[in-house]
């Protein structure tokens, strides 16, 4: 019998076209290449310069999400897109996809959305696949037991031309999550707690496998929230073993295997989970039952506290002092005393239907506090349609929130949806870096529930105070 293997090792071994040597990295085959308007233009330019084609357009899929407008009149009504250079990127992607024969979910396509939301939604994200995209949150797709990671634009060009990538084999890190999350505590809170524990460089050079009871109990949406933020712990990829929850999610999706192909695929997928006794290079444990809702107070996702907690006092540490100065918060203050000006619900971390439902449940029967601007942006057009069919848009609008077309929007503020300078934003996205949501914007990362509750009170609020269990 061969030695027990981790899931990562199995997927890696199955995709080695040329193994790693002492002098050269491995050549790895890529099963699915996702692409978007921001990180692709220079890669298409490389193809043109060298007279190359896209080797496997059938394994390539494009969407537009980062720089796209979210105002209905700009998406569907023919109103000009506010930012000229963004409009140009969108046109470039349309032309490039046409010229190179790539399937594009364009601006007005009913299946368009954030790249990491539509992959799973379409059923192209599948267990055991290697998936890459010129975007660091490609780690999201690891929730299905895929090996999925972000690449740079030069590598986007490599994959276009050869469907392969040069890679050194990463190490493995097991994150064992014991126990169950308590009611009112979400997947977002868990991943923030994990990052708080291992630090923003804790996963560098590793692929994380999230394991344990709390993970097994999660829906696919929750697992995606977890894997999404692997990169915020420094890891390029996060993986979760596929199981019945995974298969049930994928079954019948537009581009999932059908009929006898489905049965064969499931049989293959069942071989993927790490073998008993498989050895990880590192492991950490975390107790899910001990967690509260979490929220960040600083300028990286590792600067995080429980919602009933206080900002720590680490005065004298330059990074901490700089973060406090930027955030305009006081060491030692209760985080619930922080005021809120903007609330953003959306992004590839928390822009799925379950996230919108969770935010709506908290908002229902309440109003967004005077002076607070709340923006709700569904992760895809499909999520938007489903939310509208359930009347969630009405809940948001009745509470005084804005409801938009899908896209990355205020997660990175490239399309003009930004947080004004100096204002405080409770955001369900994944990065609270200086300026991420706009020049001088101050971001506090939290779950959709916490974001909605904070919108109602106009200050950071524990959602469990608004929703009776």
């Amino acid at each position, binding site marked *: 019998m061969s030695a027990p293997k981790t899931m990562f090792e199995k997927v890696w071994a199955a995709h080695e076209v040329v193994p790693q040597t002492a002098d050269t990295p491995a050549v790895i085959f890529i099963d699915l290449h996702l692409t978007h308007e921001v990180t692709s233009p220079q890669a298409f330019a490389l193809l043109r310069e060298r007279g190359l084609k896209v080797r496997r357009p059938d394994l390539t899929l494009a969407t537009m999400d980062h720089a796209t407008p979210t105002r209905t009149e700009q998406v569907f009504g023919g109103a000009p897109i506010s930012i000229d250079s963004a409009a140009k990127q969108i046109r470039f992607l349309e032309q490039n996809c046409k010229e190179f024969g790539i399937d594009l979910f364009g601006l007005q396509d009913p299946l368009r959305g954030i790249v990491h939301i539509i992959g799973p939604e379409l059923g192209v994200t599948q267990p055991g696949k290697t998936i890459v995209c010129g975007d660091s949150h490609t780690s999201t797709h690891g929730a299905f037991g895929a090996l999925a990671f972000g690449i740079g634009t030069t590598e986007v060009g490599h994959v276009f031309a050869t469907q392969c990538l040069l890679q050194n084999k990463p190490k493995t890190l097991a994150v064992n999550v014991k126990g169950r999350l308590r009611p009112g505590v979400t997947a977002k809170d868990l991943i923030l707690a994990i990052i708080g524990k291992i630090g923003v460089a804790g996963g*560098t050079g590793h692929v994380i496998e999230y394991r344990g009871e709390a993970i097994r109990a999660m829906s696919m949406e929750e697992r995606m929230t977890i894997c999404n933020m692997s990169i915020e712990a420094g890891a390029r990829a996060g993986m979760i073993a596929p199981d019945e929850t995974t298969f049930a999610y994928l079954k019948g999706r537009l581009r999932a295997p059908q009929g006898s192909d489905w049965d064969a695929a499931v049989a293959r997928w069942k071989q993927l989970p790490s073998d008993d006794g498989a050895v990880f290079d590192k492991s950490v444990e975390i107790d899910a039952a001990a967690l509260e809702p979490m929220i960040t107070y600083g300028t990286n996702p590792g600067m995080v506290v429980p919602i009933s907690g206080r900002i720590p006092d680490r005065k004298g540490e330059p990074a901490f002092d700089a973060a406090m100065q930027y955030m305009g918060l006081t060491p030692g203050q209760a985080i619930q005393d922080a005021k809120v000006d903007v609330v953003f619900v959306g992004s590839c971390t928390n822009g799925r239907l379950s996230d919108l439902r969770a935010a709506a449940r908290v908002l229902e029967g309440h109003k967004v506090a005077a002076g607070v601007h709340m923006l709700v942006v569904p992760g895809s057009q499909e999520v938007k349609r489903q939310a509208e069919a359930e009347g969630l848009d009405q809940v948001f609008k009745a509470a005084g929130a804005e409801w938009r077309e899908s896209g990355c929007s205020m997660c990175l503020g490239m399309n003009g949806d930004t947080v004004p300078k100096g204002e405080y934003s409770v955001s369900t996205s994944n990065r609270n870096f200086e300026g991420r949501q706009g020049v001088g914007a101050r971001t506090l990362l939290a779950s959709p529930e916490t974001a909605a509750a904070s919108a109602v009170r106009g200050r950071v609020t524990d959602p469990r105070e608004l929703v009776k269990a």
Partner: protein
Amino acid sequence: MQPIKQIRSRTVVMPAANIDTDQIIPGRFLTTVTKEGLGRQLFADWRYDTAGNPKPDFILNRPEAQGCEILVAGRNIGCGSSREHAPWALQDYGFKAVISTEIADIFRNNSLKNGLVPVIVDDATHAWLLANPGAEVEVDLETSTLNLPNGSKVKFPIEPFPRYCILNGVDELGFIQSKEAQIAAYEARRPRA
């Protein structure tokens, strides 16, 4: 790509930890379809005031930083997004090497692909560099050493393959293309979904 063997220059020191890719090049400048000109926007939110004027106290705006080709950064530089615009901006500005104790994976990878040399050093060397801004140092890629003016020679890790590519100014795409036979064979035996 130009071959690079040695880089000799004074250093610019930015001691902040976790300098992320949103600081190196803010998202609003990513709506470009070329690589050129990004150096003007490097560290834009630290470098310019809201009116677009250079802030005189920011290191890159100071006279002693002009012409420096080596950036010494605090721990864990380059965390965050996969945007290759980050190394492009650093290079377009004129940097040829980045030194820190930790360099985030994707940023490091993107840097290597563009011939921006990532130099990972131990805490003591890092402390010396932080304490001696403007020191004239040499990054020697042929021997994978960082040579300090105090005479110390510090080995830094770099995989043989990207090192070969940078030393010779060749790019990695050609290497993958040379494996065409194996790629075709893999495609033929690959299971279909």
